[in-house]
């Protein structure tokens, strides 16, 4: 669904539409793009700075597309007790991004969620559809390296690119 189609589901300029609109747009686009913010602002007759201000207030919104491997860190109580903060720090250090951001090469994005719901496996992180249980900061490097290897394997070979261009 396009931005316009989402907006069309919310006729009327009431500010009550703001959060639902942002949520639905994120659902559709995977993140809140600049045009999305701008069009919401125009749709509701609000300044873009206001829409941006509201959107950044909530952790649920992201402003960059997810990476090919979205890394989700659980910050629930159980995970916290078992050291999820150190795991998050290790991820931030390795990826050089803050939660909510995506690496420049588009491979990884980092997110924290209140609870993944797998407290027995704490501390737990999800990388795409793969869940990693009992993660230690030391394992972070290996997990990310695995992803990078997989990405490299999938990358088209030079021959394939040449063939496609021919």
């Amino acid at each position, binding site marked *: 669904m396009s931005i316009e189609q989402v907006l069309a589901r919310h006729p009327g300029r009431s500010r009550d539409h703001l959060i639902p609109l942002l949520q639905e747009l994120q659902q559709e686009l995977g993140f809140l793009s600049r045009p999305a913010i701008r069009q919401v602002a125009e749709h509701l007759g609000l*300044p*873009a700075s206001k*829409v941006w201000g509201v959107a950044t*207030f909530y952790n649920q919104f992201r402003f960059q597309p997810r990476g090919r491997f979205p890394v989700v860190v659980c910050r629930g109580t159980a995970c916290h007790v078992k050291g999820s903060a150190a795991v998050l720090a290790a991820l931030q250090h390795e990826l050089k991004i803050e939660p909510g951001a995506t690496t420049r090469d588009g491979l990884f994005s980092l997110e924290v969620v209140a609870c993944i719901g797998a407290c027995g496996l704490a501390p737990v992180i999800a990388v795409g559809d793969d869940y990693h249980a009992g993660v230690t900061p030391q394992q972070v490097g290996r997990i990310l390296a695995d992803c990078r290897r997989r990405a490299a394997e999938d990358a088209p070979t030079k021959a394939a690119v040449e063939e496609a261009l021919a």
Partner: protein
Amino acid sequence: MQVTINNRPAEAREGETILELARREGHAIPTLCHMKGLLPSGACRICVVEVEGQKGLLPACSHPVQDGMVIQTHSARAVETRKTLVELLLANHPDDCLYCVRSGTCELQDLARAYGVRRRRWPAGLRHHSLDVSSPALVRDPDKCILCGKCVRACEEVMGVAAIDFTHGGSWTVIAPAYGGDLNRSPCIGCGQCIVVCPTGALRERSQLDRVCAALADPELTVVIQHAPAVSVSIAEELDLPGGQDFNPQLVAALRLLGFEYVFDTGFSADLTIMEEAAELVRRIKLGGPLPMFTSCSPGWVRWVEQARPELLPNLSTCKSPQQMMGAVIKSWFAQRKNLDPAKIFSVSVMPCTAKKAEAGRPEHAREGRADVDAVLTVRELARLIRQRGIHIQELKPEHADLPLGMRSTAGRLFGGTGGVMEAALRTAWILLTGEDSPPLRVAALHGQDGVKFATIEAGGVKLQVAVANGLRHAQTLLGEIAAGKHPELQFVEVMTCPGGCVGGGGQPIHKDGEHALERRQERINALHRIDDEGMLRRSHRNWAVNELYREFLGEPLSEKSHELLHVHRTPVLDEEDALV
């Protein structure tokens, strides 16, 4: 309603807040987020007072007075609470006072002193946001921000721009433009209204004082200076002298003491602007538009039209502003008369405005790669220089500005206040339209600080319908009405970006309490009006120096030479990144 405040009986008015009552009765209550005339936001809580029978302290700025209230503004608990609040604000505030441009005019510093804060109560939890120096007009330093929200409200509710807002939450909260970008990629028009309301050093002008001082020290350069009509009626305030008086002749003397070789009056080029603008108006009326024509001397407004309402660009006068007309004349006619190489002239202007800094840097205001105006100082920056040299302006012998560019009519001086450009323009448009030089000198309907003012002037079969928009937000209202077809016959509209006009500009003196902002602006306007009332030369077209410029150099208004030097082509600002809404 009878109440008791600090043990004294007082008569309270229906619907007033505790703060209003206290101020009226002469009891000072500190505020940080309060803005007179706007709804209370209750963000800072520094205004709390004790009211008998109430469990908690009450915020004076938002709580209405009730009959029989017994109020203590400085009870032990109120004082202790305020002190704690200040200590909390200081917990993540840099200890930068010695280096801060607002040292001495900072409301946080004042509170820390008044409430006896003598040590850091909590270990410093400093934030590290980067300094935003992207705007040519102002600098944003979020580390010094106490999140009072006044800048946000000034930008949105006073100016109608809404370039900035609270973003993120909790301890990450920061005032910023949309998309987390810098001010130069936002709808900011550089008006500086946010600076004058900021209680701390978190917002300040982008200073060019160093460049000016370097130029003054360079023997190769001829350093000249112009000062705008609203400067000499306000600079005294920044030098701790009483406001509401004109210090023009003393200011000229001070500028010479500071080493400026020639001192000019922007009133001269205001007269020149009137000559061109009145001629342009008459031409539009005779040739059928586009009308209404809007004035173009206020750079914040011009910038806003370019980015927000490009369809109105044909209605904007093509005239440069007085600052830029003066700049262009200095580096052409004046240079030629004095046999000076324009490349060796350093042209400074003192403005009540921060947007003028941005204006001076625009490419259309340069010729052969040289800016017409090299540096723009605000009233505050000039006052710093005057103080640095230990000059006591009130003790100086009055001096005259240098001729011919120091010659001005009192119409030119009127430019400094809302309605002034219109009054000045009418005086000259009159003779062009009617052939008679007997214009109405004062048009009472255009005075005062109402948002939008209208006047219709009729004589000799000519009818002129004009309006004055006092501040950008009111201009937006007027534009809405025009679009709705409410003013089909309107011919000429003066727009000043800031409330009250240049007298209320973002480069004007900062007063710690914004309480009397309106009255101060009025005092400055009154001073300008007095100059006009007492003036001998009250029409721009009778300024002999301007006429000499036409005779010797430009030919006549709207001539080819005038167009080359004094007018611009206006183009919309492209918004490729969707950043300007």
